[in-house]
């Protein structure tokens, strides 16, 4: 297992810059999630770490070794694809042993490793099945198994739960978490699903437009978002934003909006401009008859454990 570090990483496709000057350090044994909307550069970043794309500039370190220009096969990492990419012409056992065959392990070692991984993922009963006969969840387990058997330096996962049904997704999410606790492997996980990210990650990097906006623990990302985009992307229902045309100084502790004073956290940077946004999470709002902001309800969602009101 290894630490992963990327330094000033950049990737352009013609005129389009997919990843801009990114820096990240992913600690050993960490479950790290790259989160962002589609087209934000998270998958490209992951593919560069894997060696499936070569960076335009910048460096990638796996452990202490600079691997930016190495071939994927020389990096000793495992990759779990969104579409699983299980070889359809092989059965489960051959899919699992395929990576080991290349590395010249003995037959008995291959057998032992495949059985270990199968047991861990609870797929030992389907080792002789064809891929086409498996359910989505089992395919996902086989794909994870194929990554596990090699005991690589790091696991890279590109939206591995993206194609699963909702019920499977929650189940697999828990299994992934448990798996990570069991084997403690450095994992980089790409997703656009903020719930998945929050529940799995030790740390999250939120990306947009090819840039890493914030990289921190889920609670910090949620409570102290670095930019308006991060604030709006995390949380469901999303944060409320109110445009204000006043600057904010760094000692200010209240903000007056439409006659109501809101207490605000201490500012670390002064917003001198006149165009600012005030954001507040829905759960921090409460109903009042005295003053406050006015609004009328236009929709109510009944979700069992709670209701969402839109106004």
């Amino acid at each position, binding site marked *: 297992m290894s630490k992963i570090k990327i330094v000033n990483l950049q990737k352009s496709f013609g005129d389009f810059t997919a990843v801009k000057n990114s820096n990240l350090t992913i600690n050993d044994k960490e479950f790290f999630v790259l989160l962002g909307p589609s087209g934000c550069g998270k998958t490209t970043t992951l593919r560069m770490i894997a060696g*499936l794309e070569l960076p335009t500039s910048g460096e990638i370190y796996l452990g202490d070794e600079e691997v930016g220009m190495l071939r994927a096969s020389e990096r000793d990492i495992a990759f779990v694809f969104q579409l699983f*990419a299980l070889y*359809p012409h092989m059965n489960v056992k051959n899919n699992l042993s395929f990576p080991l065959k290349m590395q010249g392990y003995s037959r008995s070692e291959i057998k032992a490793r495949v059985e270990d991984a199968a047991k861990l993922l609870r797929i030992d009963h389907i080792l002789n099945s064809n891929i086409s006969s498996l359910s989505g969840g089992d395919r996902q387990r086989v794909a994870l198994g194929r990554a596990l058997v090699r005991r690589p330096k790091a696991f890279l996962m590109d939206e591995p739960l993206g194609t699963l049904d909702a019920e499977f997704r929650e189940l697999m999410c828990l299994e992934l978490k448990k798996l990570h606790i069991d084997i403690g492997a450095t994992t980089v996980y790409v997703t656009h699903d903020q719930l998945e990210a929050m529940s799995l990650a030790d740390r999250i990097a939120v990306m947009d437009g090819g840039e890493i906006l914030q990289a921190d623990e889920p609670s910090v990302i949620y409570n102290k978002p670095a930019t308006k985009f991060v604030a709006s992307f995390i949380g469901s229902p999303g944060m409320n934003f109110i445009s204000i045309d006043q600057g904010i100084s760094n000692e200010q502790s209240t903000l007056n909006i439409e006659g109501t004073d809101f207490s605000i956290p201490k500012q670390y940077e002064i917003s001198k401009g006149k165009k600012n946004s005030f954001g507040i999470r829905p759960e921090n709002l409460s109903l009042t008859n005295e003053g406050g902001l006015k609004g009328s309800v236009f929709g109510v969602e009944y979700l069992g454990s709670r209701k969402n009101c839109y106004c």
Partner: protein
Amino acid sequence: MDTSRSYLEPSSFSKKLAATIIIVYTVITLIPISWMVMTSFKNVNSAISYPPEVLFEPSLEGYVNLFTNRSRQSQEYLDSLPAPETWYEELVRSREMVITGPSKFLGRYSNSMIIGFGSTFASVFLGALAAYAFSRFRVPLKDDLLFFILSTRMFPPIAVAVPIFIMYRKLGLGDTHLGMIILYTVVNLSLAVWLLKGFMDEIPKEYEEAAMIDGYSRLQAFFKVVLPQAMTGIAATAIFCMIFSWNEYAFAVLLTQFNAQTAPPFIPTIIGEGGLDWPAIGAGTTLFLLPVMIFTIILRKHLLRGITFGAVRK
């Protein structure tokens, strides 16, 4: 109203109509072929009798004549010979002839095999590599190159017969197996590249990427992961290439005489005594049909299987 039937399902009338059309078409197509097979089992007289005989006494005379050279002898000479040792000698003797040696048919037939399978293998192999490159890599001028490859099919190959004839003479490729394999490969290659590119495009690139991450080089990944999944396309392409090079007549007549002559130009030269030996010609063409038929039947199971078997959700 009948609600048990979906709107997308064809009515039973149109199903029956479709079945009838297919059956009629099949019968029409099969008549000449079955006539040819029947002719090969007739004797020389019943093959040309009028009205044509549908029911006849089967004979292997055509096949014996196909594989042997014979000469007519007087009855006294035949009587002086020891009794025939084999059934086919007896058959030939009963027509007042003796076998003088094997005919050239077997040699021509094996030439057809070598050239047909050789060029099919070469076209599919080279076509698969080129198709993979066109499908996966950023090839400069990709569209123009693909169009150029296609354009080689826009004229009939025989249009370049004269330059090829001269080139082959100068290069010493005339009447050689290698020359014919190269020629048929070149003609088939454009078809192979275009057909296979379509199939390669359908194979998600994640398969090779997964293999490359697992430690395989791109070429190893191509052979271990891409080719097995392109089997449907490879089978279809191989059948098309095989049919062309197996049946090709014009170049075979032009460029081969002795050493590398294939079966198509040879079969029409089978002439019996006092008229065409139709049963022998029928036997030759029947045997000529078999390899392509067997080849297609063997590859058929790959044609029927889907490409990705649903291992990837799209």
